[in-house]
């Protein structure tokens, strides 16, 4: 029998830990590096989201932290104690799987009690703690059902309850909402945030949905092809993305590949493909990377692309012309997909009535058009913590 070594086990305590340090952790599968070395410091009580498209290494990072995948390099320290050499069962982190991974042969109550049973917690104490989390996730009346008899949202809450009943120092969540329908996803998002706060958890949350990440997290880590693209608060990332890649994730749906015509301080005039506009040089590589003649990427949010009215053509400089192609009615506004003369597709939102085939003259506020050096290096390690 494997008994849990008290010294080796990370003591589960409701009072959060000080900090969890990831030092250059990386993971390679043969010649393919799924996760390039990255550093991150997680403070107790934080809610951190790892954001990126599928295949960007975010689940690899999570599994490595949980101990389900061995690290290729780097180390993990919890309050100065090295834990990356411990097997998953001795790290004591809670994990919520994308597939929920509920034990199908055990009732909801026994699923939740599983971890306590492994730790040989007394019956009375187990009873008390399981009841408390059942109440927290509002599943008390379903306690004796099997997981197969529950809806997706209920299964999701069992998975969360099972992970947090041990009062783990860190809860890892792997795209927990991706199997739920849209309406339920919104409810569960609020639920997860509520549980995080009520239980004083520290949460590391993997998702590919930027809306989920922005609304839930205290800090975001954006990953691109196994490298950290940017780390920061939702506001920092939303307002000043460091690369076109991060910008695209933060709602800058229009990314145009153009050429810098002239650069004056933080302002650049960019041209190409029949487009001429003035934008703000952005990103950490601002100094010197964008110069006259260099290739750039310009990021603009759909809501910042404005239609220039017929009468105002003289007052406002038109950035480019486009023909409306698809118009969706969204209540207070229209979502328009338009094609520029050079064949680039642009997205805009406008309260004005637009019909497919309409010729649109578009402009953008220079402060709202972000100019990044093209082929922005996403290799620099995140300077979080």
């Amino acid at each position, binding site marked *: 029998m*494997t008994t849990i070594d008290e010294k080796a086990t990370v003591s589960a305590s409701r009072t959060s830990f000080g900090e969890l340090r990831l030092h250059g952790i990386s993971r390679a599968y043969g010649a393919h590096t799924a996760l390039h070395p990255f550093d991150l410091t997680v403070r107790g009580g934080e809610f951190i989201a790892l954001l990126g498209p599928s295949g960007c290494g975010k689940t690899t990072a999570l599994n490595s932290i949980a101990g389900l995948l061995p690290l290729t390099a780097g180390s993990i320290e919890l309050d100065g104690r090295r834990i990356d050499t411990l097997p998953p*069962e001795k790290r004591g982190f809670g994990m919520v*799987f994308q597939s929920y*991974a509920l034990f199908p*042969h055990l009732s909801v109550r026994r699923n939740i009690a*599983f*971890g306590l*049973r492994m*730790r040989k917690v007394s019956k009375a104490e187990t009873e008390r703690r399981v009841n408390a989390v059942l109440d927290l996730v509002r599943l008390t009346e379903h306690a004796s059902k099997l997981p197969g008899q529950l809806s997706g949202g209920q299964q999701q809450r069992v998975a969360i309850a099972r*992970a947090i009943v041990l009062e783990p120092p860190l809860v890892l969540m792997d795209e927990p909402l991706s199997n739920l329908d849209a309406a339920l996803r919104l409810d569960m998002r609020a639920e997860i945030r509520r549980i995080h706060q009520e239980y004083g958890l520290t949460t590391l949350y993997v998702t590919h949905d930027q809306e989920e990440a922005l609304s839930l997290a205290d800090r975001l880590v954006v990953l691109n092809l196994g490298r950290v693209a940017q780390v920061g608060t939702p506001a920092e990332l939303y307002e000043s993305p460091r690369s076109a890649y991060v910008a695209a994730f933060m709602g800058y749906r229009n990314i145009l590949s153009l050429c810098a015509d002239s650069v004056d301080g933080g302002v650049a005039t960019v041209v190409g493909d029949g487009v001429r506009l003035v934008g703000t040089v952005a990103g950490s590589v601002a100094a010197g990377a964008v110069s006259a003649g260099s290739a750039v990427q310009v990021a603009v949010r759909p809501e910042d692309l404005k239609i220039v009215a017929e009468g105002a053509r003289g007052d406002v400089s038109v950035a480019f012309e486009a023909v409306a192609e698809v118009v969706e009615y969204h209540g207070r506004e229209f979502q328009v997909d338009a094609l520029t003369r050079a064949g680039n597709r642009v997205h805009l939102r406008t309260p004005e009535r637009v019909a497919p085939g309409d010729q649109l003259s578009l402009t953008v506020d220079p402060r709202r058009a972000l100019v990044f050096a093209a082929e922005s290096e996403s290799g620099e390690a995140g300077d979080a913590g």
Partner: protein
Amino acid sequence: MSAVTAAGAPKLALRHRLAERGVDRTLLLILPGVIAIAALFCYPFIYGLGLSFQPAKGGVFGAYSAFFSDSFSSGTIWKTFSLAIPSSLINVGLSVPISYRMRGEFRGKRLLLTLLVVPITLGTVLTAEGILEYFGPVGWFNLTLQKLGLASAGHPVTLINDYWGVLFSLIISGFPFAFLLTHSYLSGIHPALEKAAATLGAGWWQRFRFVTLPLLLPGLLTTFCLTFVLGFSVFPSAIMVGDPDGKTHVISIEAYEQALQNFNYPQGCADAMIMTALMLLVIGLVMGVRSFFYTGSTGGKG
């Protein structure tokens, strides 16, 4: 289509009602199977059952009482069980750790799978010949023991024409089936379940004991039934590598001898019926136990 006449309506409705109950033309597809089972199984079985109640002497149950009153005949029950139960337990028991290791993808998996399953293609006779050569008095096995000084040249270890030869044969021919079944049951269990158990503090033994084993047990019991039936009806190897007049005088040999050597057909049929009843009894018991376990979805690809 829109103009359905009033007269046509009831006819359509009948067809719909039948279809609701699963009665339609595709039902004809099972007809060949039904005919084959009726002609090749049901009829001979019922005929044999009837015959077993018509012995030359002793009344309706004469053949049955003859079987149980003769210790050589009734002794076959114990002999058959003592081959079928250990061989099934060994086959299932060996399958579990091997399948457990064979989960997931790794280099050489296909080769290993092929090696483990190849004995299926060997006929019982070929296996028996191999056992006779290998485990015989001057076979490699005994020669190796002699070289190691574990057996003397004059007294080789007796394995063939004995209980052990038949047991080996049942393992060689039964293991591939047990392994293939166990392997597919095990790959039907989602790997995330064990990972979840690990993050909840379960060590490898606890993960197996509390998660994998309970989910695998129904499959193991089914596998046990299959290899048990194979072992209980052992016939050629019991003759070729066994001791058919003594230690491996199993029930199928008894039935064969009664029917085709003594030409006592009713007695042979009665023996076969007893054999069937015993197998059904064991399968019924095992399935009864199986119903106590969770037998629903286990989330994997199986």
